[in-house]
């Protein structure tokens, strides 16, 4: 059953280029394609689908109709949306063999600066636009700083973004004077809290970002460079790819994602504060890793990340529905992360064993 689901889910990949269809005249090639998909993101999504189905079943058994109601489904999705947008960005840097620990802080900084802009520009009609542009710009600049330090300063991504994590939070505290700033622009907050075709705008944003992310990673030269650099940085460099420049653009990309998430947060809470997005980086990384993107780089799946995010937000929902302790919830989250990584390692070591014929110990 879950298998069928996957094929349906992955169909757009197979169908999206006409050229591919022209070319796959021989049965051999189309066979290879299906095989490729099964070994690719879809094959690894199998476990995720199973996990999600199990969680839904648990929700159904423990809470019944309350869980399956469309309102509750939208609650799950809305809850997933902000972390979701962050996770899509993080998927790119992890695929390229990097990491970004600063997304949560940058989200907070964005919300502070964005809210402040709204106050400053309250008189103007274009507040909206200024707020959005400024917020995205803050994210982009933070990403640019990360990227330059990593690519040109040759600082390990973990350390560089850890520094930004701390610094961005500090800067947000200074700017906001540790106060919670209200987003005074009601047009903006109304829009962010509205529904469109029965689905919250926040969820639409997540869906759009995910779709754009999928397209960017799988269908564009930008995505190819990302995977190539994660797969083998030196080989990519020697093939003529401008590796440093691309790494910078990746961190700018994830910074912009944090900016979008910051805007979503401002809309949802109608406020900007330095504590927004606290520890979100860990949730985002967890979702990406659980989704099947390899932490060492070279393989990334947007679809997997979306599943990862949904698994965690469904889990939270099931616990909330049953009025269970958040500490137990944290415990379950931890277990899921370990399980996912164990599965990943099995996948990775299987790959090595096949290729290298590891010598047996004498």
């Amino acid at each position, binding site marked *: 059953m879950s298998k069928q689901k996957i094929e349906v889910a992955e169909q757009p990949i197979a169908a999206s280029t006409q*050229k591919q269809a022209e070319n796959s005249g021989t049965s051999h090639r189309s066979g290879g394609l299906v095989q490729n998909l099964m070994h690719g993101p879809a094959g690894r999504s199998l476990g995720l689908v199973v996990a999600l189905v199990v969680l839904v079943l648990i929700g159904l058994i423990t809470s019944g109709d309350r869980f399956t109601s469309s309102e509750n489904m939208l609650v799950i999705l809305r809850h997933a949306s902000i972390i979701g947008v962050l996770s899509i960005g993080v998927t790119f840097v992890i695929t390229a063999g990097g990491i970004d620990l600063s997304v949560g802080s940058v989200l907070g900084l964005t919300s502070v600066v964005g809210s402040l802009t709204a106050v400053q520009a309250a008189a103007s009609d274009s507040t909206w636009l200024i707020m959005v542009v400024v917020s995205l710009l803050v994210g982009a600049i933070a990403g640019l700083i990360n990227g330059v330090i990593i690519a040109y300063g040759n600082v390990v991504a973990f350390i560089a973004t850890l520094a930004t994590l701390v610094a961005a939070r500090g800067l947000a505290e200074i700017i906001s004077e540790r106060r919670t700033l209200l987003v005074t622009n009601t047009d903006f907050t109304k829009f962010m809290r509205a529904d469109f075709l029965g689905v919250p705008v926040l969820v639409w944003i997540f869906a759009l970002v995910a779709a754009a992310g999928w397209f960017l990673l799988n*269908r564009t030269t930008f995505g190819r460079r990302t995977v190539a650099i994660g*797969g083998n940085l030196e080989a*990519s460099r*020697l093939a*003529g790819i401008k590796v440093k420049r691309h790494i910078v653009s990746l961190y700018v990309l994830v910074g912009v994602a944090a900016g979008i998430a910051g805007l979503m947060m401002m809309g949802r809470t109608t406020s900007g504060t330095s504590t927004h997005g606290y520890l979100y980086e860990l949730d985002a990384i967890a979702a990406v890793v659980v989704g099947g993107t390899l932490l060492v780089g070279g393989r990334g799946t947007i679809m997997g990340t979306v599943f990862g995010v949904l698994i965690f937000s469904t889990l939270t929902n099931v616990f909330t529905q049953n009025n269970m302790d958040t500490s137990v919830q944290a415990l379950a989250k931890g277990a899921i992360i370990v399980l996912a990584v164990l599965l990943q390692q099995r996948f990775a070591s299987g790959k090595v064993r096949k290729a290298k014929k590891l*010598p*047996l110990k*004498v």
Partner: protein
Amino acid sequence: MLKDENPRPLLDVRGLTKRFGAVQALKGVDLSVLPGEVHCVMGQNGAGKSTLIKTLSGVHQPDSGEIFWDGEKVDLSTPTAALSLGIATMYQELDVVDGLSITENIFLGHERATGGVLHVKKANAIARTLLKRLGHGSLSPSREVGTLSAANKQIVSMARALSRDTKLIIMDEPSAILDAGEVQNLFRVVRELTAQGIAVVYISHRLEEIREIGDRISVIKDGQSTANNMDVADTPKAELIRRMTGRDVSNVFPERTPISVTAPVVLEVTDLELAGHFDKLSFSVRAGEILGFAGLVGSQRSEIIETIYGARKASAGQVTVNGKRLTAGSVTSAVTAGIGLSPEERKSQGLILDEPIYKNVTLSTFERFSRTGLLDEAAERRAASEQIEALELRPADPQRPARTLSGGNQQKILLARWLVHGTKVLLLDEPTRGVDVGARAEIYTLIRRLADAGTAIIIISSEIEEVLGLSDNVLVIDNGQVLAQKTATEIDEHGVLDLVMKGSAA
């Protein structure tokens, strides 16, 4: 080294067969090893050498055939059974533990201890003796193995073998990870071992090495013995190649095509300098010319082509392609101008191993196949398939991950990459490393064909014979200096070595 007329073989293997599922890995292999000899086993990749080794070390059980040890029929049912008879195996990928000391590594699995308490002093003393026996008495037994060079790790691995009262050591391509000087040291150790009566089964691709160290040779092809116990000294190289590949490789190197006098200079290097490595280096390569760099490991030859390519930033001088000057330190500038590099470390510098063949082929050109940033994978696959056909790359499936290919076919991916790119200058650093003899001839032919099509080529190889056989002209390089520039036919291997020796003496 063989004194008796008819000594009894230490190890005698008859009619060994082994099947893995649908694959008949061994179809009848015979091997007879005398005490104290170096017995070389040759064969192409996939000939069954690894299966043979694993059968002899007790990892695999043969389906049929007999193994005699010192005249008695034995059953090597486990690795321990083989070890206790005195058969030790040194695998290509060294199985030493970096975090442990030399002594701890030597006694790994058979620690000297009473009731769980280690006899550190005693073990260290024995380790010291073993190291001395291998001519490496200067290594401290308490040193951590992770700090040793690959060559010294090999010594530790050998000491471990000797710690078990070994009579036969199987060495699987031990020279693959060593440079020329280290190989000589390895040979010295091997000679010391055989002088003590220990037999060595030596597996290698390199014909020259086998000629130097081996006593007798056995050849396997497609899981079958095609030659047994041939005397190293008496067997001509062509005969060995024929036995290994099953075809006559009358001339391994393709015929040279005379370079037209009007052929334009494509690559011009003027006063190139990389601080601390070489300076004032000038030479040029014409369209259709293959220029070889002859020199030993450490002669800075890789650094030179990496600097030309922009992978290292030149501190002075310039490189031009068709008169256009390149930006120092910019690979992209070199690639745009039409230079391609096939790097020394194919796997770590050349390929994305988990990606399919076609993405590796188009790694330098996928942008060209794209429109406004959108990939056209179908076009990429078509281009890759054309090259797969032209280069006879196997398996001929563009979707196959690069990791699963043999060394020769991985090398072809890199050639294909630059063919798709349409390079005017191709820099080849060790293009046949890890490539077996049969596939080598193919690679040579491809390289010559590229030159005939007008590509200017620079080739580096540790095997001087290969450089001389393939190139039109040769630069003899030592310590970052050009000692001589000759046409390849003017000079032979001895000539090169003479120049290098004189150069370093001066």
